[in-house]
């Protein structure tokens, strides 16, 4: 069931009137499929603020945001989704080798990404386009990778954003080691907000089965390292549901490794922001690691190579459309008077521009040359690599001599 633009919840729909009391009750009655009673939610699917049931502790982070900040969140959500849809389309047209859609997970990523400070460092998987966006990475960098032009050619130090990691779980250990370095630099618990630093490492629900993830929990716990493990539970690891990956909810895993674990509504940008902010602050102040499970849903196929009709019901997808992260936030923004029609229109226009820019830049992106194979295999040259470089060059030259290529 490939997802097209039409499948996405209609962002332009009008605010629905729901009274707060009802909403609060509903959130208390949440069953396991809606995230369960422990899930922290600040904004319910109807766009109403949730005032009880675990929300209180985190609300102050949202209260501290200006309307401009909040409009910024909305802009991020819309632009990232639009970028993602454009990339999916480009893949369909043969311009990309593959695309990994974040459709449905925008609020998990924008809320989290906006809770990071410039000095923080993020360790993504391969679907963290929203985090990349918040870290200031040009989206074309992601396109280049999925087009097969490079393998992640940005400088992580420049953006506080590590290269994408495809081998499931590896990045959690890299992030933990980085956080150990932060500790050794004395950049934790100084009280200086420009200095205190934390790391966030991303993983999926399926990834929690990997040895590396659990070893990262061990190392971070033992060393009290300033790292937040951010797990986007999008309910699926390709075709496998949570039941095939774990026997206990993900957020409960943390306790046995000696640090707190929380579940947050991953489709609620206010909640993911507030909870990440809280846990990153905690890490920066020297109180050690934590695990955040963002309860969300992978609305698209696993990647453009996948066909989810083989293993899941479209009814589930329909259900989750009702929990769309952008629609609810728009409803609330409008209801609170933080944004008006003109703003929403301007964002849509910006999204169109972004999509157009991405499309043009993709189609015009040049292929790498032969040296890309040999450059940067090592810092200092390696004789056998250089010998091969020379051999390939001579070989290619021989065609030119012959006038063949």
């Amino acid at each position, binding site marked *: 069931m490939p997802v097209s633009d039409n499948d996405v919840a209609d962002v332009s729909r009008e605010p629905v009137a729901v009274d707060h009391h009802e909403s609060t009750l509903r959130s208390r009655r949440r069953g396991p499929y809606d995230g369960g009673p422990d899930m922290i939610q600040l904004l319910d699917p109807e766009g109403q603020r949730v005032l009880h049931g675990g929300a209180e502790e985190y609300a102050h982070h949202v209260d501290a945001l200006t309307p401009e900040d909040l409009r910024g969140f909305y802009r991020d959500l819309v632009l990232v989704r639009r970028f993602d849809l454009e990339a999916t389309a480009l893949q369909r047209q043969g311009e990309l*080798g*593959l695309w990994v859609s974040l459709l449905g997970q925008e609020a998990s990523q924008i809320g989290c990404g906006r809770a990071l400070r410039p000095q923080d460092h993020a360790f993504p998987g*391969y679907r963290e386009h929203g985090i990349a966006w918040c870290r200031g990475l040009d989206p074309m960098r992601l396109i280049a*990778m*999925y*087009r*097969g*032009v*490079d*393998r992640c050619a940005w400088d992580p130090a420049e953006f506080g954003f590590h290269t994408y990691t*495809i*081998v*499931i*779980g590896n990045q959690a250990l890299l992030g933990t080691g980085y956080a150990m370095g932060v500790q050794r630099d004395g950049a934790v618990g100084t009280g200086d907000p420009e200095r205190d630093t934390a790391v966030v490492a991303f993983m999926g629900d*399926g*990834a929690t*089965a*990997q*040895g*590396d993830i659990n070893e990262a929990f061990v190392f971070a716990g033992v060393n009290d390292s300033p790292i937040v493990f951010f797990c986007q539970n999008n309910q699926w*690891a*390709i*075709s*496998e549901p949570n039941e*095939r*990956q*774990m026997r206990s909810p993900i957020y409960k895993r943390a306790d046995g490794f000696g640090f707190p674990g929380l579940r947050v509504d991953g489709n609620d940008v206010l909640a993911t922001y507030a909870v990440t902010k809280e846990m990153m602050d905690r890490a920066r102040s020297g109180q050690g690691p934590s695990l955040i499970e963002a309860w969300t849903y992978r609305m698209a196929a696993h990647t453009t*190579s*996948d066909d989810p009709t*083989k*293993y899941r019901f479209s009814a589930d997808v329909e259900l989750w459309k009702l929990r769309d992260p952008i629609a609810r936030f728009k409803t609330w923004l409008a209801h609170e008077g933080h944004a008006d029609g003109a703003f929403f229109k301007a964002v849509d226009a910006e999204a169109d521009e972004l999509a157009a820019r991405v499309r043009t830049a993709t189609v015009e992106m040049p*292929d*790498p*040359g*032969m040296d*890309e*194979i*040999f450059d940067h*295999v090592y810092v200092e040259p*390696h004789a*056998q*690599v250089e*010998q*091969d*470089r020379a051999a*390939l060059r001579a*070989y290619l030259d*021989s*065609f030119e001599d012959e006038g063949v290529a």
Partner: protein
Amino acid sequence: MMAAQRMTIAKALNAALRKAMEADPKVLVQGEDVGKLGGVFRITEHLQKDFGEDRVMDTPLAESGIMGTAIGLALRGYRPVVEIQFDGFVYPAFDQIVSQLAKLHSRSRGAIKLPVVVRIPMGGGIGAVEHHSESNEAYFAHTLGLKVVFCSNPTDAYWMLQQAIASDDPIIFYEPKRRYHEKGEVDLDVPPTLDLFSARVVREGSDVTLACYGPMVKTCLDAAAVAAEEGRSLEVIDLRSVSPLDMPTLEASVRKTGRLVVVHEASGYVGMGAEIAARVTESCFYSLEAPVIRVTGWNAPYPPSKIEELFLPDLDRVLDGVDRALAH
């Protein structure tokens, strides 16, 4: 009895799994997404529906766990066929493969047998992102206690996989993923006379021997066809097994042609080509008119897919290797 059928390598592998599971209730399949989805390449398609979740198991996303539990299942008398989703994801299982799978038979002086087949879709040429195009056979061939084979066509896919499952030794079974959809005639009823570990001369010739396996067999056959037009007679050997190595077949050919070119996708450095070159040179020293030439992936990590064709041996590079062998 079914007549010979035209089918792809992918379908032949699926048919082989089905046949092996029908023949022996101890045969199990496990891996990531092998159940409802039928695997990302559909090699296990419909098997879960027909054999149930106990025999076709979607595992948690953890390769060491997949391998370790497969070994445990074998200890209990099962014959697990493990699917590693892509070549680059076998490394988390490396410890279990090297320390347990390869060694429990000798550790226990033969008391333990581990009839485990590890299926790995291997190699490049499909325009994939990193880690999805690797050729890691050298690691496993260097690991004594394992046997390492490659299928290169639908018939071998069908029969070799069944032979591998029937074998009591642990086998790394490589499938050339970029050839999954190439078709061929498969006789589903007549078992092959060829042993799983024997090489096959797939084209006879007299000037130069080309030794290859997996996805490179087609490339070498294509090269031999072009060379023939240019008046050169190349003998192409599909090694099929890289551990053990069928030296008699190789040696007979090299004694005849006097020249050997080894072709594989993996980087040459400490690769299979090195072993073949060293071994053949030692046993055929006086027959060789030229050093053994290696045409392989370059000594570098697999590049971005836009330039993978420059990295991988292709028809022209094979012929260039032939030229170099003939230049001596």
